[in-house]
């Protein structure tokens, strides 16, 4: 009897962890895409997630768009915002030192947060599940239907990105810019255009994460910093720049957090994640899997 309860609990935590982890993974992928092409860590990545969630609420709940229309409108708006940020905030910087880029993306993050507060106010917003229905019973655990959407869409995004970067011309051009901007320029690839594409893709990825997770966690304007640091933590754990590493690490962090909530303390779940992230930063900044993609940092 006790065993079934415990195993049910474990499956419950595992699924909760995978669901939250999916968002960390998507955020980490967003960090990686922008970092690989530009060398910038975009501190506004967490705010893209917040915006994705809040825009989804606005389109689906207040404008009454059908869900797929709302979803793609969110992605469209965020692609536009990504391009806007690049052209008006990143590109005009004449001497792009690391310190300057950190401060610019922090400023962008503060502005996104301020505008979000202006549009949506301070209260958290709820969104109904994409498909309504009671939780699904799996081996002694109740899994929310939205969890399947989160996992399904995250897997779809990873597959899309793999295809995009390996099979499409733009994807390959972006990888070329990441490897060597100078050489990429010589073969006729426009580096600014590729950087712009990276910002568009990065903000869209964040927005997708926000849109699918909001039915589970609610969303409010100031959630960005916490999401950003956990997404960044996942990117580091997986080896900054590595896509597969980011996905695995995102899920690991989510699962760890979920088990910490269940078995240790729900009050300190964020603190436990953060201590883990700091521990990795201090001892193994090249990531747990030792891909060592980034030695410059």
């Amino acid at each position, binding site marked *: 009897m006790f065993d079934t309860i415990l195993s049910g609990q474990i499956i419950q935590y595992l699924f909760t962890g995978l669901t939250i982890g999916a968002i960390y993974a998507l955020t980490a992928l967003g960090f990686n895409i922008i970092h690989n092409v530009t060398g910038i860590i975009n501190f506004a990545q967490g705010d893209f997630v917040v915006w994705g969630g809040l825009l989804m609420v606005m389109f689906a709940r207040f404008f009454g768009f059908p869900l797929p229309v709302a979803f793609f409108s969110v992605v469209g708006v965020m692609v536009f915002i990504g391009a806007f940020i690049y052209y008006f905030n990143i590109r005009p910087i004449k001497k792009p030192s690391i310190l300057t880029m950190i401060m610019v993306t922090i400023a962008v993050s503060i502005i996104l947060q*301020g505008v979000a507060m202006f549009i949506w106010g301070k209260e958290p917003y709820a969104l109904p599940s994409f498909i309504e229905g009671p939780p699904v019973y799996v081996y002694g655990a109740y899994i929310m239907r939205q969890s399947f959407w989160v996992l399904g869409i995250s897997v779809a995004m990873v597959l899309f990105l793999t295809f995009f970067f390996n099979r499409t011309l733009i994807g390959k051009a972006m990888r070329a810019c990441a490897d060597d901007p100078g050489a990429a320029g010589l073969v006729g690839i426009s580096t600014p255009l590729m950087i712009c594409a990276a910002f568009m893709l990065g903000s869209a990825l964040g927005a997708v994460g926000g849109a699918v997770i909001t039915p589970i966690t609610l969303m409010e304007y100031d959630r960005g910093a916490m999401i950003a640091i956990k997404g960044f933590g996942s990117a580091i754990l997986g080896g900054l720049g590595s896509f597969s590493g980011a996905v695995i690490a995102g899920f690991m962090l989510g699962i760890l957090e979920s088990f910490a909530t269940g078995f240790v303390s729900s009050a300190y779940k964020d603190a436990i994640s953060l201590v883990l992230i700091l521990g990795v930063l201090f001892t193994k900044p090249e990531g747990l899997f030792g891909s060592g993609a980034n030695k410059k940092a």
Partner: protein
Amino acid sequence: MTTNTALKVSSFTVFIMILPWVLNLSSATAYYVDVMIFVAIHSIIGCGLSLLLGYAGQISLGQAAFYGIGAYTSGILTVRMDVNPWFAMAAGIFVASAIATAIGIPTLRLRGHYLAMATLGFGMIVFIVFNEYIALTGGPSGFGNIPPLSLMGHPIESSFSFYYLSWLAAIIVLTASLNIVNSRPGRALRSIHDSDKASASLGINVAMAKVKIFVVSGAFGALAGSLYAHYLTFVNPPAFDVFFSLKVLMIVVIGGIGSVWGAVFGAALLNFLPEWLVFLHDFDVLAYGIILLLVVMFSPQGIYGLLAGAAGYFFKFIRKESDHD
């Protein structure tokens, strides 16, 4: 300290001494004395980050943690253990320095984005502890009845007297910072800003120098926090969240990253802006973000840089005019 700096500091001190009397002439401006107290407190914590960021080139997104440690140590010791407020303040500075040393040694080995994220994470962890360690901190609602600082039996409670106390502390911190800048360690920091490797080859212990200045910034933060706690007589976590860390960053960057004076200008701007732009309510956040963005993009030396540039141009202009005569 050069004579030029000494002149600047002493004329600034005179200005600060006279200011409340001028402000008190009209009931419309008397309230600004209170605002100026926060300018002093924010100048203190800003000076610390200015040394770290502007001179050593090391970013910290976790300064609110030290501010909070100073405030909570002061509050907890005086309220729960009946310690003398001055000792509590010293204890707060000591605790913050110890934590800054422990955190600084592993953290400052990191660079750039990694350092920014690590300090951000540190600030968040401390904030969570303020919220969740309810037995000690009172949790989200915080606690009050923190006694004021007192001098020879007289409590320093009124805005007027606290104004002088906070600005005394701020001017001491400013003077100390200016001295650090023009000292051997200060020059070492500036050389670290340009290149770690070149500094190491000159015999500078780079890791040690970075940790030392981080500890100084932590101590200044704790001093500011302790003043805050004894002035408001109340502490709760929202005052020490991530946004306050970002605000300290804005104070330094908007004020002017190249000079400790920038922190004072930045603190003044960020405290008076919400007073002047009352219609903005909560949206001062948005205004700060836009100003920060504009400063970083178009005027990397901040307000102080702009003013210094304008003053230089003005004097050059005057000199040219007098040449004609």
